[in-house]
């Protein structure tokens, strides 16, 4: 699956970083044109399906080109972007969003050029926004992508927007947007994201089996490096937990019915015996109260096996396993924190036993 794998790209990008001292508003880039010429130009926005550039040496004036006429763009991101990535690694998402925002917003329209080094910055900025729950700002970013000249970028923007709408609680809006995206297949970049969104919608509407079917596809077909993998794991855990709870509710209802039936039967039998005895002795028929007094309701109820606690349910245990795995694998994500809250017995930190580095002397 080629779903967002930008965290891995981010890893590579970090190795290859060529930071410049330029400020975000003055972003420059090496643009390889169809002619093979490489031009260094400043980014000047977009409009009417065209990308705008300005010669790096000039302060004003711009040229517009169609995204198709550029083969490649390498933006010279400022130092703040590298610092922003560092903040992401440390889990300081608000700072990361602040640092990445200006460059990501300025560079986002240029994603329309197929070969670029922009995607990691924009997507990581999107991550920073959603991790820090700045959903409106994130929606703003992805709405920009929705109107991008490239259809695949536009679809990516729509998919992310749908996902964000769910987080904002706008399920009908999200559902409508997801429906416009059709049924992306595994080779489609938005496959995982659309399935994550569908799973979340199904979970909201308590269609748990449909939800787990969708999210299992994300888990099965995505690598750990996928930016949505941690959240997919969390949703996966929620699905198993919800199914376990629903199955237990059903089992409890069935037990209640069985107890009710047993009590009915006892009442009828005791009533019949008392009625016969009363008739034989010439006494008045028993009252409802007298009959019920003769029935040991607790004993009858105790004979029907109790439903085991939720914690013993197989699917609940699976959910706990998933939350544990999530908390350990992706400790710096917000979903790890959420997973820890849902764990009955949170795991002990594995890094506490870290041996101190020793250099032979």
């Amino acid at each position, binding site marked *: 699956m080629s779903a967002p794998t930008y965290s891995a790209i981010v890893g590579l990008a970090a190795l*290859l970083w*060529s930071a410049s001292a330029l400020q975000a508003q003055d972003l420059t880039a090496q643009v390889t044109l169809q002619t093979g010429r490489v031009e260094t130009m400043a980014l000047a926005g977009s409009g009417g399906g065209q990308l705008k550039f300005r010669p790096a040496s000039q302060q004003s004036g711009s040229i517009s080109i169609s995204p198709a006429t550029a083969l490649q763009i390498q933006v010279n991101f400022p130092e703040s972007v590298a610092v922003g990535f560092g903040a992401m690694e440390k889990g300081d998402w608000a700072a990361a969003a602040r640092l990445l925002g200006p460059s990501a917003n300025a560079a986002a329209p240029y994603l329309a050029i197929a070969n670029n080094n922009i995607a990691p910055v924009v997507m990581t900025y999107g991550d920073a926004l959603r991790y820090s729950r700045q959903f409106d700002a994130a929606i703003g970013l992805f709405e920009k992508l929705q109107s991008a000249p490239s259809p695949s970028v536009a679809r990516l923007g729509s998919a992310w927007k749908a996902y964000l709408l769910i987080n904002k609680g706008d399920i009908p809006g999200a559902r409508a947007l997801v429906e416009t995206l059709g049924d992306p297949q595994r080779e489609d970049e938005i496959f995982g994201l659309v399935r994550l969104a569908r799973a979340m919608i199904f979970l909201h509407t308590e269609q748990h089996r449909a939800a787990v079917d969708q999210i*299992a596809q994300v888990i099965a077909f995505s690598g750990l490096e996928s930016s949505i993998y941690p959240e997919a794991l969390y949703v996966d855990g929620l699905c198993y937990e919800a199914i376990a709870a629903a199955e237990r509710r059903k089992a409890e209802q069935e037990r209640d019915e069985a107890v009710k039936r047993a009590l009915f*039967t006892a009442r009828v039998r005791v009533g019949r015996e008392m009625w016969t005895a009363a008739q034989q002795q010439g006494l008045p028929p028993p009252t409802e109260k007298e009959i019920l007094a003769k029935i040991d309701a607790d004993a009858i109820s105790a004979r029907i096996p109790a439903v085991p606690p939720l914690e013993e349910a197989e699917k609940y245990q699976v959910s706990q396993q998933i939350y544990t795995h999530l908390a350990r694998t992706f400790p710096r994500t917000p979903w790890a924190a959420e997973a820890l809250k849902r764990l009955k017995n949170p795991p002990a930190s594995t890094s506490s036993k870290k041996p101190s*580095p020793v250099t032979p002397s």
Partner: protein
Amino acid sequence: VKFLREYPPAPDVRFEVLTKIGECHVADDKHKEALPLLIAVLDGTFDPGLRTRSLTGLVKSYIALHTPAEIYTLIPRLQNRDAAALYSLEFNLVAIKGGDELFERQDYAVALLLYKLARSKEALAAGLARWEQALQRDKKNALASGRGFQRVLAINERLTTIAAERAQIETIENYTDELRVRIARAFLAMNRKWEALWTYRGIHQDSPDAKQAESALYGAVSISSDLEANDKAVALGRLFMTEKPDSPFYDEVSLSVGRAYIREEKYRDAIGLFKEVLAARPQHKLADHVMYLQGYSHLFLDQYEPALALFDRVLKEYSDGGLAETVAYWKSFTYLFQPDYEKAVEGFTAFLAKHSGSALAEDVNFRLGAALYGSGDLDAARAQLDKFIQAYPASEFQGEAHSLLGDIAGAGGRLDEAVRQYSMVEELTDKLDKINYAIFQIGKIYETLGEWQKVKDHFRSYVERYGEQGQHSEATFRIGYAMKQLGEVAAAVELYIGAARRFGHLRDALGIDNLLGELPNDYQVVKGKSPAPLFRGEIASSDAAKKRTLALRWHMALAAAEPASAEDFKLQPGDIEQASPATLEWIGGLLTKRGETGPAAAAYRELIAKYADSDWAVSASMALAEIAVKARKVDEALEHLERVTEQFPTSDEAGLAMKLQGDLLRQNGRFADAIIRYEKVLEVKEWRGPLWPESLYWIGVAHQELGKTAEAFGYFQRVYVLYQHFTEWTARAYLRSAQCLVKLDRAAEAQATLREMLGVEDLRETQEYKAAEQQLAQLTSR
């Protein structure tokens, strides 16, 4: 170590040496010694090559030291700073091997983590290629911007390493599908079945020709079936059966598909599949299961004969198999529903004798009682049901058992006992249909006894207890009926009007349809005036309140009170979807009379769709057939008539429908098919009456048309010999007989037949009588 101690090197050399020492320790199984060195490398150098080697060693050591959970601490690094390690072939192979070791130790979570960390061969190659391209770009940019020789050298070094890795990858066998199988197995071991299902599915989708594809698809089918994801089980199973007809898993897969169909109640599909499977694989190793499930599917389609045949085959041919008990149960069950009560009794009795400890014993004990009741052995049924009630006090069949005991007591005329038994049903079940049956049976007993006050009180109490959950409108109708018997006609009329106003907006309140059938006449009797003004007012107020179902009901009542008013009725959009069954029937009839057959047919079709099991569906089908006949749509008419004969096979209408099918076929020259239909009419004793001589007559005519004169004569003869009191058919049959005899060169017998006919006084008024006189005269003159 000596080198480091004696000649402290530059940092890059130092970390290179530390890495090598760490790797030596790992190779010597001295993992505790290795760990601090490898961690020191990770913490001290930015060299991706050294970091990758350090990570590889750490993974090996954590597994060897039985502290695999420590691997989790490496993950954040691998996702960011050390992502390069993921493109190292050695690291990947260590991850897979480590995963295997942990899987063996049943540490499935970390095993899965390692498997998921590992890249497929293709991903590894593609990742390295991308990385190489990126480095080439960077090198080009570095050269173009003149950013320094050192950087270009560093890039060159990385490019050399990558080239070596790529070359090495080329030499190894593809392990991708094996890795994915491992991932699926790990998911399955952790009870994460949905994830396992999709992983297996992915293997087959991506590598349909790989050696793992068959078992992967089989795994996906098995898990789908286990999860009762029926659509998936069918789709994947069918795919498997098409692609892998010679697979050793074929038999199990085909059974899984059949089970999925059955879970979805797609019995016809299941039967089709099982037939196909048994034909394709006579040596199917699960043939007994296939036959049993095929029989089970036939049973649920009410196809008792094939079900019994299949159950018998399983019991005979696979008597040693594990299905004997189950199949014996379903065989007896089939007899019960067929119904062949004697055989059901025999079967259930034998079952209890042979499988007394069976989990099905409770069920069988109850059904034996029901079968005995059906067989007419009421004493034995009563004894069996009493025994059942005592033996299984908590059974869910307790209510039904008392209901049957009520029926038995009622049949024996012990009405007090019947009432007592029916009364217990309510206490022993919460199934409203069972309760309703018992309540209405009690009502019927009171009505039979003429205890109208009890009828009234009984149903009033029922309406109070169950409100709109129960069959309130039917109960209200019974209350009103009782009130009329008690001379409280005026109060009954008020009750009916009140009930219609309260519940008439509910489409399924069928009792309202019944009571509105009586209200116009009752009102006229009580008030001495037409109810039409009242009904018009009700129509207006119902429409104002947007209760169209109720308004339509009042329209129907108004038409009954004042037939001319029907001319003003105009069907509005949406009426058909809102009208109650009686109203739909009325609308259908009205529109048919007006010649608006399209909307009329729509009303009838709605009636059939929504109330398929009701008597209304029968009359609607008959009406649709009539419309189709008028429109000369023979096949459509046949379809409607066949629905009646299939769904209500013992009803009076079914006999007529069967005869009409014969008529249609005959009129359209399909004489052989027509004969089959007429003969079916003659098979059902309940249809004895005018249908029999008519059917005999038309069989004769059909034979005549087919040129089988002798056969035709036999049928005509049977009409006037056996059914002489049906004068119309007798007269026609005499005439046709004479025609046949003439054609058979038996003129003297023809004359005798005509003379015999003319001697029957009852036929004198028929048209055929004069024709017979003329024919006789002609024959005599010849």
